[in-house]
């Protein structure tokens, strides 16, 4: 009986540790997302300017590309609200 209980406790503790690990990984992904978007945006803009597009127009278009992140996050939030 003692063995069974200790096994259960070990399972619960390791399960909780896994949940914490999962949440921390997701948090790190969320934090680094902004940085990745900025880099992608710059590369995108650079390519457009390279082909002769005015800088202002290239900036406007790259902003549209970066807005995709907010759109994706909003959709995720909305779907989470729908499921909860």
């Amino acid at each position: 009986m003692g063995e069974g209980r200790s096994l259960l406790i070990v399972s619960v503790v390791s399960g909780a540790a896994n949940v914490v690990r999962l949440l921390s990984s997701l948090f790190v992904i969320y934090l680094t997302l902004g940085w990745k978007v900025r880099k992608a945006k710059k590369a995108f803009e650079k390519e457009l300017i390279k082909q002769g597009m005015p800088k202002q127009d290239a900036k406007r278009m790259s902003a549209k590309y970066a807005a995709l992140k907010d759109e994706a996050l909003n959709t995720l939030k909305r779907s989470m609200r729908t499921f909860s």
Partner: protein
Amino acid sequence: MLSEKPEKKKARMDAGEVKEILGVVSTEIPGLIKSIIASVFSEEAGRSMGKAAAAFYKELKDSGMPENVAVKMTEDYIGVFTSLGDILKKAGPKGKVTVSGEKAEELEKEIERRVKEKLAERAREAEEEE
């Protein structure tokens, strides 16, 4: 006493299974999300998308399209890639109907009218009974 034993054994097995599932999920899910994000938001992805848009713009310019029209068309071209929100909205829960704009107002008025009709009907019935 005897009936408790299989239950405890089952609970132990369930806990073990949950532990295993959580172990796999906590390693696989972040990797999956990372790769999905990298396919859209990485330097490489941005560059290749920029190359595609720039090539489109260059072709339009070379074929004699005015500057503002070429920019507008390129913007629309990029909009196709970036309309993720619309795609996700369409891929929402099945059977869910979204009504917006004029249709929503029409629907609202129709519902209001029918509710009023029903209420009037019930009031009439109640008066007749009295």
